Structure formats: C-alpha cells, structure tokens
C-alpha cells in the first residue's frame, strides 16, 4: 500500500471487517505512515466516545400513551396508507423516479377508466337480452311497452318480442335452455338472465304455453 489508507478501510479495520490480506496490508502501511496512524487513533477515539453514550430511559408515559392510541385509533391499514408510505420512501430515495411514477400511475388510471367506460358502452351491444313471443303470464303488451328485467330496459318492438334498448336483435350467439315451472311470472327468471348476461352471452327468453324458457 503506497498511498494513504481510505477512511473506509480504517473504519472497517476497527470493526474487523477487512479480510486477512487487507488487514495485513493496512497494518504494514500504518507502521510506516504516522499520518494514517494518527487518523486511525482519532477514529478509534470517536468510536469509543460514541459507544460510551448511554441510552435515554424510555419515558414513563410512553406505554400508556401507546395503549391509549391503539384503543382510540388503530384501524386496519388502507390501500392509501400503504401507497403514501411507499411513495414517501421512494420520494426520499429518488424524487425524480417518484414523480415519474406518479405521472405513469395517472396516465394508467385515465386509460383504464376510459377503457372501463368503453367496455360498459360495448356491453349493451354484446349482451342482448331478447324476449320472444308475447308472454302469456305478463299483462297484454303493445308496441313501446317497457319492462325492466335484470336491470335492463326492454321494449316490446314491432316484430313482436321484447328487445333491450339499443341491441341488435340478430346478435344471438349462444343457446342455453333453462325451463322454469309452469305459471311462474316472467320476472322469476331475472337471476338466470343476470347470470347469463354476466357471462356476456346472448339470452333469448321464450314463453311456450306455461313454460318460460331461456335460450
């Protein structure tokens, strides 16, 4: 070792963190370098002083205060709480990255929000709910009559069946037969309609005699 020892080497040496070869080289250097020797002793004194500092006693009021605050305010942490903590940590370590992250999150949020709106708009086109044939168990109907089934607004149309507003009547893509008991009212099948709608399937509701059938 020709140049002076680094502060890191001296510090690590005092903590016995140098590997044997590094420690031996440093010791050889210290024997011939009074400056580094003085620095080492000065550092040793700093460490000794630090380690001689006594800890403060814990305030006698602390435990009671903690118990009181737990009783008063402890709640399960929310998503926002964790987000705030993470952002604070990131902000301290890398403010530019944190700002970049916030911008990306905002853009992503706006994109997902608009996508969600589009999905909702498209949903009514892709999940037609059609009542075919005049339902015997429902009151007489006329063109323009409205009924709400499974949160969907259906209108009796000129072709003689119930059609969800804004839906293409030809867009029937799947058939599934569920017979209900004879004489049941049409609205009894709401849950089945909703289940099929949730699967994004077309639903045709037929009334044949006393049987309400979903297709």
């Amino acid at each position, binding site marked *: 070792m020709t140049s002076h020892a680094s502060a890191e080497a001296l510090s690590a040496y005092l903590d016995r963190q140098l590997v044997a070869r590094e420690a031996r080289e440093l010791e050889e250097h210290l024997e011939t370098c009074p400056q580094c020797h003085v620095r080492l002793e000065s550092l040793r004194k700093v460490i000794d002083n*630090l380690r001689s500092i006594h800890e403060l006693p814990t305030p006698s009021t602390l435990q009671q205060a903690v118990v009181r605050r737990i009783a008063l305010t402890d709640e399960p942490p929310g998503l926002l709480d964790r987000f705030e903590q993470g952002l604070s940590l990131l902000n*301290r370590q890398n403010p530019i990255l944190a700002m970049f992250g916030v911008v990306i999150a905002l853009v992503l949020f706006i994109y997902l929000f608009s996508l969600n709106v589009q999905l909702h708009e498209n949903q009514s086109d892709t999940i037609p709910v059609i009542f075919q044939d005049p339902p015997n168990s429902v009151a007489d109907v006329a063109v323009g009559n409205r009924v709400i089934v499974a949160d969907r607004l259906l209108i009796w149309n000129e072709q003689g069946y119930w059609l969800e507003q804004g839906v293409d009547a030809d867009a029937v893509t799947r058939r599934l037969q569920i017979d209900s008991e004879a004489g049941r009212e049409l609205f009894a099948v709401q849950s089945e309609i909703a289940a099929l709608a949730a699967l994004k399937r077309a639903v045709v509701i037929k009334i044949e005699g006393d049987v309400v059938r979903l297709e």
Partner: protein
Amino acid sequence: MAAIMVATSTATSLSSNPDLDLATRHRYGDPKAFDEVYSRYAQMVFNLAYRMSGKPDEAEDLAQEIFLRIHRHLARFNGRSTLKTWVYRVTLNHCRSKLGRRRYPTQPLADENDGEGARLVDESRDPEDLALAHDASRQISLALRQVKPVFREAVVLRDLQGLSYDEIAEVLEVRVGTVRSRIARGRDRLRAVLEKNS
C-alpha cells in the same frame, strides 16, 4: 375465547421460530404478544427515534406512532427477517417518512442547549470523570446531529445500537458494502465536526 386459545397453542406448537410465534399470537388476539414486543423494543425504538429527530419530545411522539404501526402490522410479520431487524426497519421507515418532509434535521451546535449530556452518562462515576464524561457525551451527541441522516442512520445502528454489518444491511435493505461505506463516511464526518469544535 377457548377457540382462540386452542388456535394460539396450535400455531405456537407448529412453529420453531419464536418471533413468528409472537406474531401468530398477536394475530389470534393475544394481548401479551404485543406487550412482549413493547418491552423488548421500547427503549431501542425511543432512542433511535431520538437520534434521528434530535428532540426527546418529538422522539416520544414518533415512538407512539411507531408502536401503533407495529401493532397494526405485526400480524403480517412473515419471519423472513428477525423481529428485531423488522422493528428497526419499521422505526427507521417511520422516522424517514415523518422527518423526511423536513429533510431530517441537522442542527447547528450553537442552537443546542437541552441539557442532554446530564442524562447520557453513568451518574455513579467519580465527579471529575463525570463532568468530563458529561461534556464528551454531550459534544458527541450534538456532533452526531451534524451528520447527514443517511450516514447517521448507519453510525447509530452500528455504534449506539450495536448491530452487526449484516443486520444493518438487512434493516437498511442495502448491501453490506454500502453499509461499510456509510458507516465510514458517517464516522469521518463526525470526527471532522468534533475536531472543528475542539
């Protein structure tokens, strides 16, 4: 209650990790689990908060909030680290979060006169030694506040809390090489401040 006790004893008997057992007992509602965590770590949490904030009153507020946080999250402790390093990490993260907004205070010596030295040394020593110790202890405590928080954290964990380099690396979530560098820079800065003021 009986069901809780059964669940607790079952969970305890299944684990060979006492730290994890403590977290499991807390999860099942055993209040003694948190009491045990408090009695183990209260002094450490308070002193670390004090070293990072520089003010006893603020350290007490911080310690309250830290234990509130520990109470909330202890059930989710997964045993990947020791409970000790986990508590240290919670403590430092909270201090950074709260004090970071003020960029962790580094206070000028001239502003300091809180009589801290009187509480930091062993009162049973010889009066002359005691006076010198008071002064040395106070000087080093105040000088420590002149060190940048990132280096102060490492020095406090090493020289005041007595953690190993590996433990500090775990607490700070950095490599051991980084710990070595931060400790050295912190101590070097401290030496420079003390020499300047002597």
